[in-house]
């Protein structure tokens, strides 16, 4: 296929070369004829002069001279017209080629200037450009930008398996600051939530290795498990006292799910497991106590 496609191209090219070669040959022949026409006219003039002076039939010589002059003039005009047309055509072709070359050079200059401005501009204003990337992500203010930068630094410093922090509130702030969507309303919601959290809960949350869970629906479905199991448990008040789920419930039942903390979302499985274990153990001990009292009565 490639050879078949290349064959017409080569044929066209060869035809174009042949045509141009023929045209150039014809042009050179025309120029040679024009050069020879001058010598022919001079020799013809000498011949007719001699004939007019030596021959008796002068009128016939004059008529022949007239015919020759007319033919020579017509032939000269024809030659000159052909040559001038070819010269004009060649000049126009060269002007078109130069115009096309100018256009291509202009395109190259444009591409080069864009290329140069892009790289040199990026080198000169790289920091500003990096910052401007984040301006579209609601980092309009300088404070937001600094907070985001500090958050990124904190994210780089912190590891998911970090140790338990001493003070709960600053640790939670540091842990929440590298949130993927650092918006001020989220921070306010987080602060209100963390302020209601007990110290024990916060310490347990910091132990959680999964800081950024992806499934948000778990935060809505998880609290339903202890709520469903709560009416079946006879000592739900004690369990509630030992594992206070009210702040967590109030936080998880909010309609704005994007304001929830990722740590809260991740904390529910372990919490619910512990709650179920505690309830079961409590129920078991309660059952044992009831059994013992029943046996004592009887």
């Amino acid at each position, binding site marked *: 296929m490639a050879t078949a496609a290349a064959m017409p191209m080569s044929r066209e090219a060869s035809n174009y070369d042949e045509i141009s070669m023929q045209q150039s040959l014809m042009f050179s022949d025309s120029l040679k004829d024009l050069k020879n026409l001058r010598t022919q006219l001079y020799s013809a003039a000498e011949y007719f002069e001699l004939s007019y002076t030596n021959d008796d039939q002068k009128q016939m010589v004059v008529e022949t001279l007239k015919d020759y002059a007319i033919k020579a*003039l017509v032939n000269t*005009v024809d030659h*000159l017209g052909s040559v001038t047309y070819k010269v004009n055509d060649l000049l126009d072709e060269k002007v078109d080629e130069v115009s096309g070359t*100018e256009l291509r050079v202009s395109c190259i*200059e444009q591409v*080069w200037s864009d290329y*140069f401005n892009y*790289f*040199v501009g990026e080198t000169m204003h790289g920091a500003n450009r990096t910052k401007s990337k984040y301006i579209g992500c609601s980092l309009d203010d300088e404070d937001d930008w600094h907070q985001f930068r500090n958050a990124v630094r904190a994210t780089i410093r912190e590891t998911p398996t970090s140790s338990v922090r001493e003070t709960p509130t600053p640790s939670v702030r540091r842990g929440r600051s590298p949130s993927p969507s650092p918006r001020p309303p989220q921070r306010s919601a987080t602060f209100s939530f963390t302020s209601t959290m007990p110290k024990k809960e916060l310490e347990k949350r910091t132990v959680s290795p999964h800081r950024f869970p992806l499934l948000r629906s778990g935060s809505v479905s998880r609290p339903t498990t202890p709520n469903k199991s709560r009416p079946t448990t006879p000592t739900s008040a004690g369990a509630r006292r030992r594992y206070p789920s009210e702040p967590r419930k109030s936080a998880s039942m909010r309609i704005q799910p994007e304001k929830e903390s990722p740590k809260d979302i991740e904390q529910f499985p372990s919490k619910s497991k512990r709650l179920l274990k505690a309830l079961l153990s409590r129920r078991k001990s309660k059952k044992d106590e009831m059994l013992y009292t029943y046996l004592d009565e009887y």
Partner: protein
Amino acid sequence: MARAGGITNAVNVGIAVQADWENREFISHISLNVRRLFEFLVQFEATTKSKLASLNEKLDTLERRLELLEVQVGTASANPSLFST
């Protein structure tokens, strides 16, 4: 006889004058056409010179632009740190 010969000579002179005027007319036509041809050649020379001058100017401009581009590309290739992202 002399009178008839005079008339014949007059007729011949008249014919010769007419032929001479015809020849002059023919020569004037030929010279006029040659002059037109010369004028055409002069005009063609002027237009061709003008076209060649504009072409030369364009080629000079193109040569300068290409030289500038060559210098810029050479400078950029000499400093590749500018183009490292």
